[in-house]
């Protein structure tokens, strides 16, 4: 407020009315700001909770063990024996049968493979293969150990950790872990395998590699199919089709299709691609085509809007120079509409990326351990992986599920970002 005495030429009631208007204006502004803050808050909460739950999925717990030459000699090249011997020897008090089983349970499902790789000489330790020589190695820990280490339960062993129901590990196991941790033999490095491995029922081994590949193949196919078919359909409808009852009918149907539940497209794909054409079940080929069917109306609608936004003056300019309709459309209108079309297609892709329901129908919701190497291979997809993992009894998959959601969100952000970039970069002023 200013102190300079400016005399208002307005009457007292007009001044009061003005004040009221200012008040309501600032109220609306505050309401708007409040709405933004609220939605940002929800988003932040969602992201934070997923991050908090899933952040751990990107790290894995590893325990360092010293492999003695003696143990290697005894194992005679069998990693299974070597692992058990090592565990038995490294952990104090693992001499009863029950205690030994508890010791074995600390190692992860892939620890044996890690050792085998070294024994076979496919991975280097500095020593020549087959030559018994003591070395130390970081072996992956089991999912229960992973959970306990990440939630900091290892140090709780003095208090009654087990009774408060936080971990399924026994006090003996917790004691071992506490010792190992105090000796610096436990670390949690970045888990690259989470992004490269295929699916597995062992949480410490399970990764998104297959799902990412599957999603990429599926989306690539979906994009190629829906974009070309969609753009051509949009160009025809917008530029060449006569405006009659039939095209109006088509338009209504396309708009309807855009809001048809996605599972219907799955049923359609099942009936057409699998049963009629006999395409391979669970493959990204069929997944891509089904998602393309689903995305097609969106792409057509976005492309038409984009074509409509090209000013008619550009068409007229070309036609007035003696260009044919085809020339006018493909030399001028389509190139100008392309960024908008691409944006629409990418947004459609982003929706397709998050779809599970239609894939259920065509068998992509399945346990598929081997990452696909072509569009014809059986493949899973990212949202499917989330769905499958969330339904797994093993608790360690809860973390994996959130991790997979994070990766999915990252992909969505990348795609939507690309759409915005495209729009900004090619934004035209007429």
């Amino acid at each position, binding site marked *: 407020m200013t102190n300079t005495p400016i005399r208002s030429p307005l009457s007292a009631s007009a001044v009061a009315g003005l004040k009221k208007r200012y008040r309501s204006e600032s109220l609306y502004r505050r309401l708007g700001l409040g709405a933004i803050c609220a939605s940002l808050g929800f988003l932040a909460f969602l992201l934070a909770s997923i991050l908090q739950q899933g952040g751990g999925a990107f790290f894995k717990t590893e325990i360092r063990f010293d492999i003695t030459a003696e143990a290697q000699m005894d194992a005679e090249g069998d990693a299974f024996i070597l692992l058990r011997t090592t565990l038995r020897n490294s952990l104090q008090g693992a001499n009863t049968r029950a205690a030994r089983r508890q010791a074995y349970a600390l190692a992860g499902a892939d620890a044996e493979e890690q050792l085998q790789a070294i024994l076979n000489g496919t991975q280097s330790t500095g020593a020549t293969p087959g030559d018994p020589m003591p070395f130390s190695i970081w072996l992956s820990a089991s999912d229960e150990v992973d959970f306990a280490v990440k939630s900091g339960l290892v140090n709780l062993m003095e208090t009654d950790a*087990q009774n408060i*129901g*936080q*971990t*399924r590990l026994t006090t003996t196991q917790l004691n071992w872990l506490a010792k190992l941790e105090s000796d610096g033999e436990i670390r949690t490095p970045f888990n690259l395998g989470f992004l490269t491995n295929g699916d*597995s*029922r*062992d949480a410490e081994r399970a990764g998104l590699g297959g799902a990412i590949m599957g999603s990429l193949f599926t989306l690539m*196919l979906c994009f*190629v*199919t829906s974009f*070309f078919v969609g753009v051509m359909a949009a160009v025809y409808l917008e530029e060449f089709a006569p405006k009659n009852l039939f095209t109006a009918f088509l338009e209504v149907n396309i708009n309807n299709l855009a809001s048809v539940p996605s599972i219907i497209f799955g049923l359609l794909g099942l009936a057409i691609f699998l049963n009629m*054409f*006999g*395409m*391979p*079940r*669970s*493959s990204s*080929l069929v997944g891509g*085509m089904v998602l393309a069917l689903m995305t097609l109306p969106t792409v057509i609608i976005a492309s038409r809007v984009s074509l409509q936004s090209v000013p008619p003056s550009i068409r007229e300019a070309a036609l007035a120079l003696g260009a044919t309709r085809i020339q006018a459309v493909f030399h001028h209108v389509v190139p100008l509409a392309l960024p908008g079309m691409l944006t629409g297609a990418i947004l459609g892709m982003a929706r397709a990326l998050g779809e599970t329901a239609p894939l259920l129908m065509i*068998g992509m*919701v*399945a*346990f*598929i*351990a*081997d990452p696909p190497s072509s*569009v*014809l*291979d*059986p493949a899973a997809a990212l949202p499917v992986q989330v769905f499958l993992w*969330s*339904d*797994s*009894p*093993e*608790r360690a998959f*809860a973390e994996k599920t959130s991790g997979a959601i994070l990766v999915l969100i990252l992909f969505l952000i990348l795609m939507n970002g690309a759409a915005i970039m495209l729009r900004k970069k090619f934004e035209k002023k007429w």
Partner: protein
Amino acid sequence: MSLKLVALSLALAAPNAASYAADKQIRVVGSSTVYPFSTVVAERFGRTTKYRTPIVESTGTGGGFKLFCAGTGTDTPSVSNASRAIKSSEVKLCAKNGVATIIEVKVGYDGIVMANARQSAQFALSTRDIFLALADKIPGPDGTLVKNTNRTWKDVNRALPNAKIEVLGPPPTSGTRDAFVELAMEAGCKSFADIKALKKTNKKKYKQICHSIREDSAFIEAGENDNLIVQRLRANPDALGIFGFSFLDQNSDTVKAATINGVAATFSNISDGSYPISRPLFFYAKAEHVGKMPGLSEFVTEFISDKASGEEGYLSERGLIPMSASERQDLNGKVRLALSK
């Protein structure tokens, strides 16, 4: 334009795809209850043999048989998991499509538990209690059927705690729900002589009484996801949840199971059949695919091997209740015989 070429070649490749793809990879469909076990075996099998990892799809028992019985082509599933024995109608459907010989393999048992949060009171239920608590209609004081108005467990049975009846269970589409209704509800239902008599005279009415679950807030359908039920139990100490034994096994640190008819839901009790709510799990293999599908008989063998479904097998770690040694031996012989034909 190179993209156009890609599209074109893809379009051309599609019709030929069927012959190339499904390329000798074993496909497993069926029950979501067997799915966790089937996938573990599949993964091991893929890892330890030269064959590709079988694809395991969770379609539900009925859906699995539909796919399984669709024909004998290599693009049809070779194995269908089931949380119940195959029905005669399904056998007929299979036969109609040329699937004449089906190898039935029992893999073990699954117990269904009613559990609550670890810090809550321990429940000791009878099947009769379960029926009285969850049925839509129950016999009234004068013996006629009345709408179930029991609000607390104490209303059902004086010995039970004075807690609100609040049970989280699977929806009607689920196999677990079917099993629960058949094994727990019907057993409790039959404990009333009048109703049991009805089974002979009016089977339809009998089924309607025994199989209907009340639709008020006492029973909450919590979806197919058993993890969700476990989570909700942790948050709500009053509630009980219905789910498979494997989830209890994996979450034994947070939830505990009620005893049913005095029997605790433990590994051994389910295994020896004394726990009342347990059912056998199966898978069915297509004999026509043996020899045609590389690795099929090896996969079946792996599944029934001691290492997998034996007493100390890795499936037991996942919550599968193994069969008794003698039962296993019988089955092993039968399956090997069928495979060698």
